[in-house]
């Protein structure tokens, strides 16, 4: 039986892999991880807004036509449009001047692709965590669903909640300092402190978490209506809301923080 923990610095964050593959040889597992991380780097090269020569940057500057760009680009842009429609505009990759900005979605999409590589290779239990955007496969090492702690937006020494998750979870919001999200509709008002979305796919969960972080209660209702996706919102005033599908781990059975 092979298990592996691996951390990869990519896409401006650290992506960690927690994998178990009882049927795989250690070398096969290592090869699968190498393939998965290579894919992450490839996607980073394609979609980086910070590398001036990335296909996305060139597309934004108008130096590259969409039909000449790598096929992933149009795939991601299609996904952005779909996410925009699904979120009724609260996720909008096309809102800002300077061209399309798919960063609210592309990390989740890329992590899903990496996970798919691992699952194809025979990994039976996997968690890929890209800076808090997490996708899981199979059962957690302790058995049953994965337990994911959601950071408390203000109390840095505590968790807001621990959730049971089968597949994907993404959290967006203001952490450590200031706000960093841009409301595509240009509204002002207190942004939520923390917006978490769970669901069967991290690509959409990532985009929807961004949407709720911008649109607060209105976007929350939109997510609640999307089949399979659930939202957990902590508003700027500290009040909370969650859709029925959010599974909290009870405090008594939760041995983790708060301390």
């Amino acid at each position, binding site marked *: 039986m092979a298990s592996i923990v691996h951390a990869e610095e990519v896409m401006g*964050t650290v992506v960690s892999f*927690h994998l178990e593959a009882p049927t795989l040889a250690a*070398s096969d597992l290592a090869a699968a991880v190498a393939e998965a991380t290579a894919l992450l780097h490839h996607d980073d090269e394609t979609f980086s807004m910070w590398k001036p020569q990335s296909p996305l940057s060139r597309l934004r500057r108008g130096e590259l036509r969409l039909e000449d760009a790598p096929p992933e680009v149009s795939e991601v842009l299609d996904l952005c449009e779909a996410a925009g429609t699904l979120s009724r505009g609260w996720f909008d990759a096309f809102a800002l001047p300077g061209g399309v900005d798919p960063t609210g979605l592309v990390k989740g999409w890329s992590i899903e692709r990496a996970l798919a590589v691992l699952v194809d290779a025979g990994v039976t239990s996997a968690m890929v965590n890209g800076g808090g955007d997490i996708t899981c496969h199979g059962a957690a090492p302790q058995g049953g669903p994965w337990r994911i702690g959601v950071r408390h937006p203000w109390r840095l020494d*505590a968790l807001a909640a621990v959730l049971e998750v089968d597949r994907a979870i993404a959290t967006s919001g203001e952490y450590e*300092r200031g706000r*960093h999200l841009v409301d595509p509709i240009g509204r002002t008002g207190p942004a939520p402190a923390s917006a978490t979305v769970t669901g069967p796919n991290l690509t959409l969960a990532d985009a929807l978490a961004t949407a709720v972080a911008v649109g607060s209660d209105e976007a929350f209702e939109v997510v609640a209506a999307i089949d399979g996706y659930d939202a957990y919102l902590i508003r700027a005033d500290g009040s909370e809301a969650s859709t029925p599908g959010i599974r909290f781990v009870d405090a008594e059975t939760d041995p983790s923080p708060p301390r």
Partner: protein
Amino acid sequence: MKRAAIAVVAAVGGFAGVLGFNLGGSRAPLLQGAGASTPPATPPGSSSSASSSSSSSSSSSSSSSSSSASTPPPAGVRSALGNTYQYGYGQLAVRVTLNGSTITRVDTVGLQTAESYSQQLAQQVIPLLRHEVLAAQSAKVNGFSGATYTSEAYIYSLQSALDKLKKK
């Protein structure tokens, strides 16, 4: 004239008072608390959304892994210092101590920032991260959603420390 003299003497007196207070050590936090232990946080942005803003060091990709299958855990207590990771308004490094394959201790060393606010944030974040690493081991929580730059720097440094231990 007289009042000017009063003002100058009083100002110098107040200033000397603060210095004396500090040098006397009774106000240790102002002089010491800052530099000794902790690192800064970084600008917002990493968690999940709008900005994929990469920190300065993210262009260089590095990776490390530890596989429990390929290498049987060595016995005894060992520790290693992770790489220094720069981000936002500072940098930090982590020292990890293992007993066998179990992480028994995670310390932050080489924390450096010039900026008090970042320093305070990091001082609040890092105990959580330390707890997180130890708690995650016990498999009660598998991961954390809503990451920050500080935590990324922390995890990265931790990983590099584990990596060094594995290679020893």
